[in-house]
């Protein structure tokens, strides 16, 4: 993908988890410069109903426009479906530093049995002695956990 454009998009943050850029999230799937000078950005939604997607598209447009790209088309692509495995390692570290437990790798976690809990590491004290409070958290992409050692509740960015 076009490095110059990528450098610009690195400044567009996820409005719900502002520590992550759209690149960290892995939602920018392709960048195409058309012959007529139009710049097409292909993005994919994290969750189908994620209310941040419209704002993300608007922010991408604004950031590109501030850098001189005014003819911009943003296209939503659904396939292949987004997975947390596309999140950058740097993004996962940023999440942890921000106090959100990063998603476990898909092969290790996604198919859990009923009532099963995944060993999610507490982003505050690094303990694995944690418990799930709710499968659904403050946003579609997060679950709510609590650490049994330091007692802090925390968000876990669900493996998806």
């Amino acid at each position, binding site marked *: 993908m076009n490095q110059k454009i990528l450098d610009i998009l690195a400044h567009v943050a996820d409005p719900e988890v502002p520590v992550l850029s759209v690149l960290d999230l892995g939602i920018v799937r392709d960048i195409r410069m058309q012959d007529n000078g139009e710049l097409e950005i292909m993005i994919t*939604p994290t*969750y*189908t*109903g994620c209310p941040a997607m419209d704002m993300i598209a608007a922010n991408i447009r604004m950031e590109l426009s501030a850098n001189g790209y005014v003819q911009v088309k943003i296209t939503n692509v*659904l396939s292949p479906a987004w997975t947390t495995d596309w999140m950058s390692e740097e993004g996962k570290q940023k999440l942890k530093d921000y106090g959100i437990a990063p998603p476990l790798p898909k092969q290790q976690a996604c198919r859990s049995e009923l009532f099963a809990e995944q060993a999610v590491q507490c982003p505050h004290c690094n303990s694995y002695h944690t418990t799930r409070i709710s*499968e*659904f958290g403050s946003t579609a992409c997060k679950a709510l956990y609590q650490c049994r050692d330091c007692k802090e509740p925390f968000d876990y960015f669900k493996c998806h």
Partner: protein
Amino acid sequence: MNDFLFKYILHLADNALILGHRNSEWCGHGPALEQDIAITNISLDLIGQARNFFQYAAELKGTDTTEDSLAYLRDARDFTNLLLVEQQNGDWGKTILRQFFMSNYQFLLYNRLQESKNAQLAAICAKALKEVTYHLKWSSEWVIRLGDGTDESHSRMINALHDLWPYTGELFIPAPYEKQACEEGIAPDVSELKEGWMQNLINIFDEAKLPVPPKAFAQTGGKTGLHTEYLGYILADMQFLQRSYPGNKW
């Protein structure tokens, strides 16, 4: 435009929208904060899925049809959602059981649709399936928790079962547009999904100590626009703004 395809996509959209709307009525009323958040997150997923289906249907229809005109400007007779999803929320047990019936169904249906030869439908369903998998897990856990909980929670689940069971038969009786979608190789035969649905239900009900109900008379009509009295009230609530202030935007 393929008329059956438009109708088929609209049916999938209506199921997701109406169930999403019903669940959203719990917003601020859930039995515990975490579960209030869970049910409204499920609403968000369902309404997001409905949007994808509506956008595709609008594209098929062309002219000035939009996702919004399909959601907000059709009357009850034009909605083809299942009767099950429009049933009243009742207590938490009834809402949970309705969700479990529907997630169990959507899980099997989307699993097949993600391999549809219609690429757009396959893409929407592959994505939706990931979310429905959560819904199925969450609602299964709750059916077990309530069924095998206290005498009170158990009896409420039995009541919910009595209320909702007659509406489950419709899931597996194909409407003309479903038959045609199946013949064209775009969708599975819904009657074939029944066995897997029942098997999963038996597994969960066994653990939940709930009786598997015998075969019952199936209430039908939703798929062809003949609804219970509840849908009109849902639409009155959901469509009020666009009906009173046409074209109004955020």
